[in-house]
């Protein structure tokens, strides 16, 4: 098999795995340049309302700030959350809210990719919402973005995974953007690259 064909096969497999249920990829970017140097907590949550079983996966995390320690104290329920930044974090929706909290010193940007996936229910009347918040304290009492947002203060961005398969985004702070994307995950690139490297080595050996 040619090297090119192997590459296509690996890419196809990755895409197929990612799209076996309804899944949408979004690149989330927070422009934190006005807060550079501030101590902060990045608060992620995946909250269902009438939602079927679903998850939100955060990966490809990057920042020019300094990532601190994960906080497991000031979360409502992390039992359905696995992983830790800068690695992959997977938030399920088994509870009323499923949340993750991580300290960092802000630089000018926070960026990651999130994809949501569920077994879509065509008659669904709700879904689950992935949201990103930025707070000045671990307990979430001091919002840094969307400061005057009332009951959503601190929450910068929401991505809805509806049970009927549709998704939507809602930006509550001008510094937060979410762009739909269909990237090959960096980790998968590494994996794919590694496999291709091995294939090239074998070919060479052969």
């Amino acid at each position, binding site marked *: 098999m040619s090297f090119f064909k192997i590459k296509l096969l690996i890419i196809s497999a990755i895409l197929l795995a990612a799209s076996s249920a309804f899944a949408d990829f979004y690149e989330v970017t927070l422009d934190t340049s006005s807060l550079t140097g501030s101590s902060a907590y990045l*608060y992620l*949550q995946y*909250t*269902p*309302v*009438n*939602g079927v079983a679903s998850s939100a996966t955060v990966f490809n995390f990057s920042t020019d700030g300094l990532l601190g320690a994960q906080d497991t104290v*000031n979360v*409502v*329920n992390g039992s359905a959350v696995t992983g830790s930044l800068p690695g992959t974090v997977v938030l399920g*929706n*088994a*509870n*009323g*809210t499923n*949340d993750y909290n991580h300290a960092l010193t802000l630089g000018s940007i926070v960026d990651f990719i999130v994809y949501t996936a569920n077994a879509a229910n065509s008659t*669904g*009347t*709700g*879904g689950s*919402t992935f*949201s990103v*918040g930025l707070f000045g304290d671990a*307990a*979430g*009492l001091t919002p840094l973005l969307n400061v005057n947002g009332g*009951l*959503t*203060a*601190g*929450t910068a961005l*929401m991505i*809805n995974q*509806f049970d*009927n398969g549709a998704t*939507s985004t*809602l930006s509550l702070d001008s510094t937060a953007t979410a762009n739909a994307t269909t990237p090959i995950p960096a980790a998968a690139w590494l994996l794919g690259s590694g496999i291709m490297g091995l294939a090239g080595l074998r070919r060479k050996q052969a």
Partner: protein
Amino acid sequence: MNFNKKHLLSLGLVSALTLLGTTAFAANLKKPYILYQMPNTTMTVLWQDDAVETNTLSWGTDTSYSTGTAQVAEETRPGTVNQHQYKITGLQPDTRYYYKVEGSAGGTLYGTGSFITAPDESAKSIRFIGQGDSRSQPFALNNLMKAVTGFIALPGNADYQRLAIANGDWVNSDADSNWVTEWFDNTKTDIRSYVASTPMDGVKGNHDNSSGYTTYYAKYYPNPYPTAAGALALKAGTTATYNNLFWSLDYGPVHVTYIDQYSSYAPGTAQYNWLVSDLAATTKPWKVVVFHASTYSAGSDGDDTNMRALEPIFAANNVDLTWHGHSHNYARAGAYTTSQAGGDSIALNVPHITSGGGGAPIYQPDLSNNGSWPHVITGWPSYEFMTFDVQDKTLTMTAYQVTNESTTAIVPLSANFPATDGTSNLFLEKIETTVLNHFTNVSNQVTATAGNIVYNRASKLYTGSLTVTNNGASALSGNLDVVLDGILYLQNIGTPSNMYSTASPKITSMVATRPASSKGNADPGLLTGVTLTNATGSNNGEPMIRVSSSGLASGASVTVPITFSNPNNAKITFNPVTYQE
């Protein structure tokens, strides 16, 4: 002695005896009380004295009693002795009248009272009282009726005087002695004054009944039984003992169907045939079915599981409410979905309310939904009565606990009634309010979707949005509401004193475990602990939110915020049902 002398002597003797029978011995045994027998231009007054005499009944729109008067001889119904009954006719609907009964005109006053005639048949709004299981404890019954009278006397509540419905077990057994001591004791002045001014239209219970027959309930409460349909059937060999005490009442916008569950209601019987036609024929918008022993209650008396065979008839005829007693407490049972019903025969979305705290010894409710009493939603041990308030398309029912009851003495009302005055005097506490609406379900024309939900750790609230889209070809007009079916509406549940709880420790919550579900049923029942904090109302115990006051055009959408308190962090799940008012 010649004929003339003999004649004169006998006349004199008769006269003397008559004189003795009236002025010397005549007294009022059972003070006047009233009964509404329809139509709305009438009211029936009943009383009993202890001699053969003709009494005088006078009535009017004030205490000059100048509208009318009647000389009322003893009635001739079998089994009645010295009893009087008079149906005043020619009255104006929806009008307050006063009446008095005298031994004779200007003679001994037997009693006075007042009443409000039934409303116009086209009335869309009406209010009335409900209570049941008054038996066995006349002091408790007296105190309860004192509290009801006090409630009616509160500003804005006068309208509740007009009618009371009762769900049975009026006395401990079918014997005149029980009626004398438990219902007609003239020393129980609050009972006497209440029934003199509020007609109590009801049904018999098992205690009023002896092997399916009753003498004294039928005697003292001669409801307008549809005898042509087979009601009021005489027991063979008797002259005043009956079964088949089924009947129905129209009162403004409400149709009340009374089922005698101690007479056969099997398919093909007179009662069954009548029930089916009665419910189908009524054109009244509100249908209430009343019987004594609940099909679904919280115990501790057993449910009448045989009567569950009638639930499909209730469902087919859009019965709004089943109302009953038998268990001496308050309870609300029901199922909203076939999953919650779990195969049980129960009319869905129909509250089955037990209101049996009218004076009899209190029974403790079973809120486990894991035993003999399924589909319980709420329950509370209490002396209680209920109010019913129909305002066109909305029926509001409230159960009130009478706190500081006594079974051994008459207790005064609180100086701050209905609130407590800090003493052991009687006062009222809300147990629960349940609201029913006759709105049009338009869910097949719209989609309602929830989203954008986020938890705020500072406020400890969940906020999201609810979007309703009109997918139909036609516009929807007026108020549109969405009911969050599957969530228990907690805001209408009160916090009454648990003084009547005998559990150890005392019961503190009236919310059942897995409300509306049942033993062995995997359905978790209604979601408790989740509160829609910006609800604009409720429907049958579930929260409701107004999404539009100006309708929704075809193809248009409207989005409203929804906010939840959810301290247990439960997964919020509901079925949005959209209604057009």
